[in-house]
């Protein structure tokens, strides 16, 4: 029950607006690009130095000099521009990117995010995640509601943070929450996925949250 990975991506795509510059993380967030509404101008940013990229290349047309931040071969489109990593993160840290959609291991009710390391396991590094959550105007997390029956929406993150008070919205397979990260107004459940119930969400959520009157 609830949303599939693709349906979560489709729900996340509803946060897109015409003219947005958007950075998508690896995994479910990448799928969001399949749901950009026709006629809407959305430019995707890749933090290795590209703004505006197209689909994967046709077989035989892969270019080793043309990759996205996941190191996958991609293509150029008429709006494409290239720049250095410093310019790329100036764009990100300077607040010029409108929306970042990324995955998470844990999110806390105050907007804290943990998605880069598990102590005791081999750490791969945070890549650009800390910069994205610190600098992008709106941060949307897309993740499974719980992992092996352990809640991922918590009162406080137990894993090392990627950012403190950075998440604006969480989309899980069961529903959608907003977080008032600046105002300290906490977390609110605003939508239920089809088939999900308020009781199920309550039982799988450690974080305190309000339920929107609409529900």
């Amino acid at each position, binding site marked *: 029950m609830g949303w599939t990975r693709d349906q979560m991506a489709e729900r996340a795509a509803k946060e897109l607006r015409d003219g947005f510059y958007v950075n998508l993380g690896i995994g479910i967030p990448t799928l969001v690009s399949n749901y950009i509404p026709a006629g809407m101008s959305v430019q995707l940013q890749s933090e290795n130095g590209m703004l505006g990229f197209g689909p994967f290349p046709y*077989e035989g047309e892969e270019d080793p*000099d043309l990759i996205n931040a996941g190191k996958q*071969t991609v293509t150029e489109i008429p709006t494409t521009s290239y720049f*250095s990593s410093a310019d790329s993160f100036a764009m990100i840290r300077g607040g010029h990117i409108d929306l970042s959609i990324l995955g998470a291991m844990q999110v806390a009710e105050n907007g804290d995010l943990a998605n880069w390391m598990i102590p005791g396991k081999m750490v791969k590094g945070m890549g*650009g995640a*800390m*910069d994205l959550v610190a600098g992008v105007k709106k941060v949307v997390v897309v993740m499974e509601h719980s992992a092996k029956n352990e809640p991922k929406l918590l009162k406080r993150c137990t894993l090392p943070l990627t950012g*403190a008070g950075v998440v604006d919205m969480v989309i899980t397979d069961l529903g959608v929450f907003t977080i008032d990260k600046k105002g300290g107004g906490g977390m609110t459940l605003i939508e239920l996925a089809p088939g999900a119930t308020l009781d199920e969400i309550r039982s799988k959520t450690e974080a305190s949250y309000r339920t929107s009157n609409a529900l």
Partner: protein
Amino acid sequence: MQKVYPDARAALAGLLKDGMLIMAGGFGLCGIPEQLILAIREAGVKNLTVVSNNCGIDGVGLGLLLDTKQIKKMISSYVGENKTFAQQYLAGELEIEFNPQGTLAERIRAGGAGIPAFFTRTGAGTQIAEGKEQREIDGEHHVMERGLVADLSIVHAWMGDTEGNLVYRKTARNFNPMMATAGKVTVAEIEHLMQPGDINPDHIITPGVYVKRLVHVPNAVKHIEQRTVRKRTAAPAGTGEEV
């Protein structure tokens, strides 16, 4: 002043020392100075600290310098693609300092621009901020990060002229331009060697002042880490061409 050297080994002659700090351009395997890395392996210098966004993959790029245990410490943002790295790290043979990718890029840019430190929101409230000076600016927490300067920077460019003016190609630009500015000595490998005047001055990304030595690497073999493609769809009837 002759900046062009006959091969990678000659371009690095006299510059390599044990224990030095080297910046190496590239993102994944895209835009890495591979021939210069091979020459460093051949030279055998050890205890290197290497600043690079990643550490190659097993047997390719900086991964080559892991095989020979020439690297003591990496300063990177992500090293997930390398088994040798994990083995050496878990065995205590290799140190890693993780920097957020934008902080890493900016530390290099700052180093090259003579800026010893800067404040950023990135990492505030995380373990990246521990032990660093922190300051509240305009009501938000910021972390002080230091500029980075290298004993040697090695970069890869698409075109370069004999003056050292460089142009990069597509996403192979990445960390190369900042690293070119942040090396006490910068050596560039270039795919196409041009004469002064051949490159439109408006198109030059790295002015020659930053580049001390050049090596021409025509037919450089390039690697793809994640080959992702789509299938060609059949042409609509009657169009007679592929769409």
